[in-house]
C-alpha cells in the first residue's frame, strides 16, 4: 500500500466512525435538542473526513476543488438546518430533557 492509500483508509475510517457515532447518538440521546447536536457531528467530521479521503484519492485536479466546495456548503447548510430544527422545537415550547428531572 502506498502512503496515500493508508492516509485515505485512515480518513475514511475516521469519517465512518463519526457518522456511526452520530447515528448512535440520534438513537440514544433523549430529546430533539440533544439529537440535533449529533447531526452536526455526522456533517462536520463524518462528511469532512470522508471528503478529505475523496480529495486525496482524486489527487490534484479540478474535482478536488469541488469536494472542498462541497465541504464549504455543508458547513454553511448544516448549522442552518440544525438551528431551524432547534428553533422550531423552541417555538413549540418543548422543554429540553434534563438528567435531574
Amino acid at each position, binding site marked *: 500500500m502506498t502512503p496515500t492509500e493508508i492516509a485515505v483508509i485512515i480518513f475514511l475510517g475516521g469519517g465512518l*466512525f*463519526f457518522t456511526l*457515532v452520530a447515528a*448512535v*447518538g440520534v438513537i*440514544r*440521546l*433523549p*430529546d430533539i*435538542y*440533544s439529537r*440535533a*447536536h*449529533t447531526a*452536526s*457531528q455526522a456533517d*462536520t*467530521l463524518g462528511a*469532512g473526513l470522508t471528503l478529505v479521503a475523496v480529495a486525496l484519492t482524486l489527487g490534484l485536479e*479540478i*474535482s478536488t*476543488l*469541488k469536494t472542498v*466546495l462541497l465541504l464549504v456548503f455543508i*458547513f*454553511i447548510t*448544516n*448549522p*442552518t438546518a*440544525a*438551528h431551524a430544527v*432547534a*428553533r422550531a*422545537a*423552541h417555538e413549540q*415550547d*418543548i*422543554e*429540553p*430533557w*434534563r*438528567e435531574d428531572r
Partner: protein
Amino acid sequence: MPEEPPDQAVDEAILVPVGESVTLRNTVAYAVREALAASGEIHFVAPLASSAIGDVSADGKAELEELLERATVWAEEDAGDEAADLRIETAVVGADEYLFGPDDYARVLTDYARSHGVERVVVDPEYSPGGNVPLLRPLQVALVEAGLTVEEAPVDRPTRRGQLLRRGGLLQFATLFGVSFLFYQLLSGFTLSGFDLVTGVVSATVVAALLHRIAFSDRMRLGVIAKRLVRLAIFVPYLVYEIVVSNLLVAYVVLHPKMPIEPRTVEVRSAVWGGMPVTTLANSITLTPGTLTVRVRGQDFMVHSLIPAAREGLFDGSLERAVRFVFYGRDAAGISTPRERDDCRILDTVTENGGEED
C-alpha cells in the same frame, strides 16, 4: 450681549446626535434655527461604536471629530450674523465602551445630556450609527424613556436613495458577477470553451442582476472585505480544530455506557452585532458539537449545550473572540470573556422570559 441666566440656558439647550448621514447638513440647519430661537446653546455629540467597527475605530474617532468640526462650521454659517449668540459644544462619547445596540447609544447620549443639563434632543431622521442595523426608532424610544424630549428634524430625505444605490450597486453587481462567473467556470472544470464562457456570462448576469441588491447589505469597502477574507482563512483552521476537539468529547459521552450528558440551555450576551458577524458566530456555535444555537435576539444567544465542557468553552468565549477577530480586527479580539463580563447564565426553562436569575 448680557449673559443669560444659566438655568434657563440649560433648559433650552439642544443636543444633536451626530453621525455620517446625508441629511446631517439640514438637521444642523434646523437645530441651529431652533437653538437661536431658544438659548442658543447647541451640543453636537457623536457616539463612537468603538468595538463594533473594530479595526477602523482609530480612524472612526478621527472621522467623527472631523464630522463634528464640519457640523460646527455649518452651524456658524447658518447662524450668520447671530453667530455670536450661538454656543456650540462638541463631544465624541462612548469611545471607551462597547456600544452594541440602541440602548447603549441611548445610555451614552443620556449620560451626556444629564451631565450637561440638556433635555431636548433633535435627531437626524437618517442617523444610523449601527451601519445596516436599524437603530433610530429604538434609540428614540430609549431616549424618551430616559426622560428627554426627542424630536426628529423635519428634513427632506428621499432624493438620495436612487443615486446612492446606483453608485454602490455597480460595484456590488460587478463583484457578484465576477464571483458567480468564476464559480460557473469552476463547476465546468475551467474548460474555457466558447460555450462555457457564453453560458457563464449569461448565468452570472442573471444571478448578479437578481441578487446584487440583497447579497451585500453593507456598504462595500473592498479593503475591509479583503482583510476579512484573509482573517477568515486564519479563522477556518481554528474552527476546524474546535470542531475536532468537541467532536471527540461528544463522541465519548454518546458511546459511554452511562451516557453522562447534562443538557442545559444557556443564554449568552455576545459581543458581536450586525447580520454577518452574528450569523457567523451562531453557525460556528452550532457547527461545534455539544453546543446548538436555539434562538438569537440581537446579541442574545440562547444556546443548548449537551455537556459541561461545551458550556465552559462557550462561556470562555473563544469562538466569540475568533469571530470578532474576523470582522473587527486583531485588537477587538482581546476582549474579556462572557464569564468575566457576566454576560452568561444557565436558564432554568426555555420558556422563561428572561430577567430572573436561577
